[in-house]
């Protein structure tokens, strides 16, 4: 039966004029993803006709790594999230009700992707304005309502506030934790729909729920931070196996390993990195999970291996390793850090 299935599949694939390469031996059939980039229409056709759960993961992943029209994200992401996360019908309710972390969210809005025009503040960035904003921000003691948000924030900043507050209300056991602002901020930026603001927000919110609930990413932020610790431990193991010399240097720095790595997990590599990089990481992450973080970090350490070994001073090593990702993006370029990827600049 199995033999028949594979024989048939092999036959079909050989007849197929798509760009699939087929390698077989007696036991396995390995489908090697096409080297050709999908056109926009191919993406649309695929998303319309193939159920996410039956997709060819390798092919989709390979295509996501390639350069594609950024506007396609607004159909690809919901395609991924729709089947597994119910439409957030209570979103408005969650967004309007105050949450326990309102003040922290409020304070973080202006400190989230603030270099992007999309999130530019309402205020001019003169010293006087920063001063006044800072005063007002700290003085707020009342419930944060629409009027206060209107006074302080630009439209997209307000949308980000509501999204974060909604999640904190929907999942009160986790609430809002710093790092989420970078991920949600990235999602809203990537999935924004200027024709329908609410639709863009919904897509961002649903994808955030997919990441946190379906992919269990929320456990990175819980009180025990068990997931974070276990991911960091795994990374430590990978380094030990693949780059024992670098692993030894890091161990000799007398700092907890988590000190070097926690930021990459809390913010899904979108903290202090260019938007093109964090967007590509997110594209891959939603299919591959945290594996992409491990892959990129291993690559980063491999690329910097000699330089790290040449540093003689422990503080220099610590500083170098602490800043290794943003520094490597600048030094090697984004594409060099993400295997088989094409990046839109």
């Amino acid at each position, binding site marked *: 039966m199995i033999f028949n299935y594979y024989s048939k599949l092999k036959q079909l694939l050989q007849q197929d004029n798509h760009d699939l390469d087929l390698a077989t031996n007696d036991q396995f059939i390995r489908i090697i993803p096409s080297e050709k980039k999908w056109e926009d229409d191919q993406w649309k056709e695929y998303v319309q006709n193939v159920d996410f759960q039956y997709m060819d993961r390798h092919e989709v992943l390979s295509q996501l790594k390639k350069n594609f029209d950024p506007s396609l994200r607004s159909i690809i992401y919901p395609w991924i999230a729709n089947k597994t996360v119910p439409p957030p019908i209570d979103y408005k309710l969650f967004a309007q009700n105050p949450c326990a972390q309102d003040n*922290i969210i409020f304070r973080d809005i202006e400190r989230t992707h603030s270099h992007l025009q999309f999130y530019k503040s309402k205020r001019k960035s003169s010293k006087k304005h920063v001063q006044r904003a*800072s*005063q007002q921000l*700290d003085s707020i003691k009342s419930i944060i309502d629409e009027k206060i948000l209107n006074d302080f924030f630009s439209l997209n900043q307000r949308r980000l506030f509501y999204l974060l507050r909604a999640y904190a209300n929907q999942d009160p056991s986790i609430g809002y934790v*710093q790092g989420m602002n970078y991920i949600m901020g990235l999602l809203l930026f990537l999935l924004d729909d200027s024709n329908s603001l609410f639709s863009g927000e919904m897509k961002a919110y649903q994808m955030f729920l997919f990441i946190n609930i379906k992919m269990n990413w929320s456990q990175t*932020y819980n009180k025990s931070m068990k997931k974070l610790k276990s991911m960091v431990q795994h990374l430590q193991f990978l380094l030990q196996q693949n780059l024992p010399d670098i692993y030894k240097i890091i161990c000799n720095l007398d700092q*907890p390993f988590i*000190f070097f790595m926690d930021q990459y997990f809390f913010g899904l590599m979108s903290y*202090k990195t260019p938007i093109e990089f964090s967007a590509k990481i997110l594209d891959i992450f939603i299919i591959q999970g945290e594996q992409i973080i491990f892959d990129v970090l291993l690559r980063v350490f491999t690329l910097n291996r000699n330089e790290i070994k040449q540093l003689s001073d422990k503080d220099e090593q610590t500083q170098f390793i602490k800043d290794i990702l943003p520094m490597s993006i600048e030094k090697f370029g984004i594409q060099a850090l993400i295997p088989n990827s094409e990046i839109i600049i």
Partner: protein
Amino acid sequence: MSLGYYDWLVKVIVLGDSGVGKTNILTQFCDSKFSQNYTATIGVDFKIKILNVQDKKIKLQIWDTAGQERFRNITQTYYKGAYGIIFVYSLIDRNSFNNVEGWIKSILESTTDEVCSILVGNKLDSQDRRVQTAEGEKLAQKYNMPFIETSALENKNIQDIFDRLGQNLKIRLENEGQKVSNNIHTQSGQFKLNQEVNQTEQPTSSCNSC
């Protein structure tokens, strides 16, 4: 990018609620700027700066921690080996002042080493003050630490934080060095914390809150 010769290497941690200006204080001190495109710190950031205190050079390893309560689980693991602590609150955020004692207690619970610390009330540039100077002074006295009010935005008294902390660190380090020196003298004859001779060490001895 070696910072060259130094006499002592000291780990300093900056603690305080989210948004009180910890990162801005450090950016002013280390990079002489106030960033208006700033970011909320997650986890912990790290900076190095050499501080000149009279004839001595103290190399500061400064750990800038995230202020949100949730991160305490991991930031507490960073307290180990800290020799200096800067507690920061915002002069216009009463809660951040009320929470300072919580931060002090978290240090007392997490480390048996006694540290040199300083209390900093930031955002002195603001008109809408919610914490009076006398209150800050009283709290600092209670825990036997120096107190200073600053503005990272206007670069007011920022250098003073580190100068005062540095003075106290120097006194302690010299005392400790003397003690260690006396002990070592009978064995190898010399004790010097100096990068050039590759004997840089983290001070491990205790000091009362300065």
